[in-house]
């Protein structure tokens, strides 16, 4: 995650989720495609991070290569429902694009 809004910089004992970014369409490949983020962070923080990292006007993010979750959903809840929870916090795959990909 980028230095300024890095949600992982909060309390160290808080659950964190590993987020893996996968580019789709003509989205640029990120230099750093795996980040650790607080489980309590909102999905919109991921969108802000992607918008900044891809240097585009607006980034789009999807789960399951299918749907966009609510922006106010927490990463922890999304990981529990659509990712893989484990002892280390969990893992969530996020697909991103610079134009709408899956509606």
């Amino acid at each position, binding site marked *: 995650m980028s230095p300024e809004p890095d949600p992982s910089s909060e309390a160290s004992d808080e659950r964190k989720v590993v987020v893996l970014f996968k580019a789709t369409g003509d989205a640029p490949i990120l230099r750093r495609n795996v980040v650790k983020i607080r489980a309590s962070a909102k999905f919109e923080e991921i969108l802000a991070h992607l918008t900044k990292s891809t240097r585009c006007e607006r980034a789009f993010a999807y789960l399951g290569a*299918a749907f966009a979750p609510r922006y106010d959903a927490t990463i922890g*809840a999304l990981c529990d429902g659509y990712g893989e929870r484990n002892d280390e916090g969990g893992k969530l795959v996020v697909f991103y694009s610079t134009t709408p990909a899956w509606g």
Partner: protein
Amino acid sequence: MSHVDACVGTVAITLEHKEKSLLLNVPRTASLGGFLARTEIRERLRLILDVPERFTAIEVRARDGKGEWERFDARFAHASALADCASTLDGVCGIRLEVKGDDDDAMRVDSGSGWDDLERECRQSFFNGVKEATYATHASASKAMTMTRESADAMWAAAQRGDYEGLRRAESSSAELREGRREVLPVRVYEVRDGSFARAVVVSAPASVERRDITVGDALRQFGVDLRDVRTVISQGIEIDLDFDLAKTHEALRHVDGFLYLVTHCGTSS
């Protein structure tokens, strides 16, 4: 009783524009934005309320616990969840819709291209929900994503119009999509605090819970709702007891997109 039987009904919504008003009965199951964007409805809005074809914002307001009107962007929600958020069972559902034209000093919500774009956005939002529910129950959204154009159009038309026969057919397509190997139920929880409609928040995403022997109260607890704080739980205009079986409640009251919408009214009484 199928869930379609339980969900049939309308919500009275007062639409206001430039000091004119119109009372519309919107089917509970209808997508609010999609319903308003229907050709015959938009024509009525144009004739009776002078609503322009192109506009910059569409807002929903509802009375809060103090009787004030509060703004809430609810274009993509369905009428039933809005009504459930706006009132408790003993109160009158008061939703006021305000349409801002290009000549108004309105907050811009998009490029302001009017009804056609509103309908397209609402349709996208609806199918996004269908895909999410399918993914939650099937661990893949491929069934929803490979629907034929005809099935998708029929499902959207049913959601837009809230008509009984259309909903039955749409429900049958939707049920096929959701048949899956994961024993989970897609649920969304709105938490309305202190009677304030504007402070309604979704606390549940992605909101799938195990199907087996779970009550509504158990599910709310899983979503982080403090049950001691809950005054009422409403779904499709029906008060839900915390001891109700979640699977049966989902079966009877789910929306056509596959989600059960539980609206919890918390905090001090309005």
